[in-house]
């Protein structure tokens, strides 16, 4: 019995240390953003909110940085929203079709819908570069949108598929029996029944698009510089805690999005697709 207790204690200590390690890099960013010194230093020299002030200044005053940072955030925001809308429509319909279509080749289509998860993102990025240069004349915003649509589509497919699997099919039969045709049944019965999965998929698709670096890296251009790219360029050249303050803000957004997904009890499904 005693042995048992010490073994549990050992495991508990180990797990605690592990999670300190796991959350460490995030904590370090948050803590060093409050540093009062001029460079990122850990442990911090003193507590100060001045870098958040500097961030505000950057946004408000710095003539060279301001438009770029704001533009980057703006680009990432609309890119995220637009690709989420597209991914939700294509992904929800696709997941429904994958479950219901009784045509040969459905299994191949299933692989196709998950392909962006199987491909290394760098290959997706490089491949799209070649594709766009062959097609020619595609404006940057369209390249970015298509790239982000492709990588966020599976997020919706997976979460909606999971919801569809728990959907009681007799509800749809009942609707048809009461005179609703297929479109009406889908809109009034199926869609409301899987809205949790659709919502979780949408949030996750947005997060995927907003924080994507690799595919974006190959598709962006100077005039359209999404936020992850901007942040990369910034931390390459500046070591001041301003970047830490900025990263803390993004971390806060990510965390609240994750809590939202957690509330929808869809974190498990999301984990299954991330990467």
């Amino acid at each position, binding site marked *: 019995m005693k042995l048992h207790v010490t073994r549990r204690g050992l495991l508990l200590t180990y797990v605690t240390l592990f999670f300190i390690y796991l959350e460490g890099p995030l904590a370090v960013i948050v803590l060093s953003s409050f540093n009062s010194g001029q460079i990122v230093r850990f442990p911090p020299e003193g507590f100060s909110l001045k870098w958040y002030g500097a961030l505000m200044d950057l946004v408000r005053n710095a003539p060279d940085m301001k438009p770029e940072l704001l533009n980057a955030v703006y680009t990432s925001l609309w890119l995220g929203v637009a690709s989420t809308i597209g991914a939700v429509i294509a992904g929800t319909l696709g997941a429904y079709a994958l479950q219901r279509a009784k045509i040969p080749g459905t299994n191949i289509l299933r692989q196709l819908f998950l392909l962006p998860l199987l491909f290394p993102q760098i290959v997706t990025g490089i491949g799209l570069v070649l594709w766009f240069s062959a097609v020619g004349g595609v404006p940057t915003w369209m390249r970015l949108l298509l790239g982000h649509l492709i990588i966020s*589509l599976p997020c919706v497919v997976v979460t909606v598929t999971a919801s569809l699997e728990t959907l009681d099919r007799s509800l749809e039969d009942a609707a048809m029996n009461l005179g609703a045709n297929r479109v009406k049944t889908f809109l009034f019965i199926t869609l409301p029944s899987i809205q949790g999965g659709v919502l979780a998929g949408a949030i996750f698709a947005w997060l995927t698009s907003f924080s994507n670096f690799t595919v974006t890296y190959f598709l962006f251009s100077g005039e359209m510089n999404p936020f992850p790219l901007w942040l990369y360029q910034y931390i390459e050249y500046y070591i001041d805690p301003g970047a830490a303050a900025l990263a803390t803000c993004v971390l806060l957004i990510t965390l609240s999005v994750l809590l939202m997904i957690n509330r929808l009890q869809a974190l498990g499904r999301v984990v299954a697709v991330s990467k």
Partner: protein
Amino acid sequence: MSSAVAIGVGVKHLKKHLQTDWFAPALFAPGILVLLPLVGAFVMLVRYSFNDWDPMLGMVPAWTLENYYYVFTDPAQFKGLVTTLRISLVVTVVCLFVGYPVAVAISQAGRYRGLLMFLLVTPMLTDVLIRAYGWMVILGPNGPVNSLLMASGLSSGPARLMYTELAVVLELIHENIPFMILPLAAVLERINPALNDAAMNLGASPARTFFHVTLPLSRPGIIAGTLLVFALSSSAFVAPLVLGGGNVSVMTTLMQQTMLTTLNWPQGSAQSVVLVGLVLVLLAGYGWVLSRGRRTT
């Protein structure tokens, strides 16, 4: 006679075909529209990988295996390949040994399971770049590691930890260890606790119970996690880019250079195809292990 039957069968077949309900299949259309460029892109990658390249003329249509030959013989590229495999191997082994006890803990966590899962998943789903930035701070000259090293007198000046293979490995472990822990925990949770009790009851010590019962039963999880982490590590791009800072050449960073700096598209395509091949083989193994596990439980 037989031709009449054949026609009858044909008509029946045709009728069945026309009767197919096209409502659900039609809904594939938007998704296919989105994904077609990806398929097209991959087809182009494969085709380009057989083309010739001339520094003056650029890409020249051809059918040659030279690019693939270079992936394995060109010193820089071969070194990149070896580095990729070495880093992935180290990351995978460390993830397995560090992650296994955590998976055991999660599988026994009871009502704290949800919390542990959330803690495990949070860093995994945050921006890669932000995670990488965290490691930049930690390993930087003014970071906690160097502070400790200097305070303890182990080192007089700040050690160079950033822009090394070690930095890349540390980040990749951090990034990928959840993908080792999740399949392991899933398998461990399905192991009937009565088996452990039975083994103990039969006189096996805790250590023997672990090695003779738990470990063999968790093998599918070990294989799945290993394949997944290896695949993810070998296709990682951000960690070598940001934390390697040009000092660590792996396949992905070489691909980036070939495509964007040298503009040798055929070579970059061949590198891409090799990487996709490697990753798909690993992921196919992963899928196979998972589906087999599902069938046997």
